[in-house]
């Protein structure tokens, strides 16, 4: 991964046509500004992943294994709750 150190107001240029400017730093959060041609889509990564995942999810085809999965989920296996992994 390419790493730059930038101060507020400074900019990075990607491919000569996309600019990313550091606008603000508040605690652990930074505000970024993007300037890009209309054919470049810029979005948060979690949105991008969900967009792709929704497309995959919508391709679902009902099969026998799906009914089996439903039957397995009907039986609670353990009372304990899954926890998210440590950050």
């Amino acid at each position, binding site marked *: 991964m390419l790493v730059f150190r930038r101060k507020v107001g400074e900019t990075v240029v990607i491919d000569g046509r996309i600019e990313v400017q550091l606008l603000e730093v508040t605690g652990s959060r930074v505000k970024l500004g993007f300037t890009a041609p209309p054919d470049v889509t810029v979005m948060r990564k*979690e949105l991008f992943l*969900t967009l792709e995942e*929704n497309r995959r*999810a919508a391709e679902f085809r009902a099969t026998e294994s799906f*009914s089996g*999965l439903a039957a*397995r989920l009907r039986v609670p296996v353990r009372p304990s709750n899954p926890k*998210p*992994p440590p950050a």
Partner: protein
Amino acid sequence: MPTITTPGLGPFAYRDEDVLTFPEGLPAFETLRIFVLAQALEFAPFVFLVSLERPSVRFVCAPLVLLAPDYSFELLPGESIPAGLEPGHYAAASGSHLLLAILTLPEHAPPTANLVAPVLIHTARRLGVQVILAGSAYSHITPIHLLAAGGAPC
């Protein structure tokens, strides 16, 4: 009672309260705003979000209270809050709203649940939103067999 049929599934009978408005659609399907929450005993605990405008578009979902009973998230004031929602704490187990995970069920790969982007259904308002969580410790492709077995999601 009206019914809706989606390829390979249905017909599902549904009530007025099962018709949900998604003011922003769902990512990748932003133009579809009305979905039916379709259910049938034979597929429980799965439920389906079926587009009323284009019934071939449907999502298999599972209640998060079943997949991850402790699941919750915060919408903080000042963050970008989806239309129709207020800042606050949203838990999988709640009487006022329903949290669903959209499942991906590939034919030749293990099923997964998107726990980064839960579908929040405000039952009284008949409103739905897929909330995209920033900085979530969960994955958008959490294997659901691990969840069903009580293991930690990947």
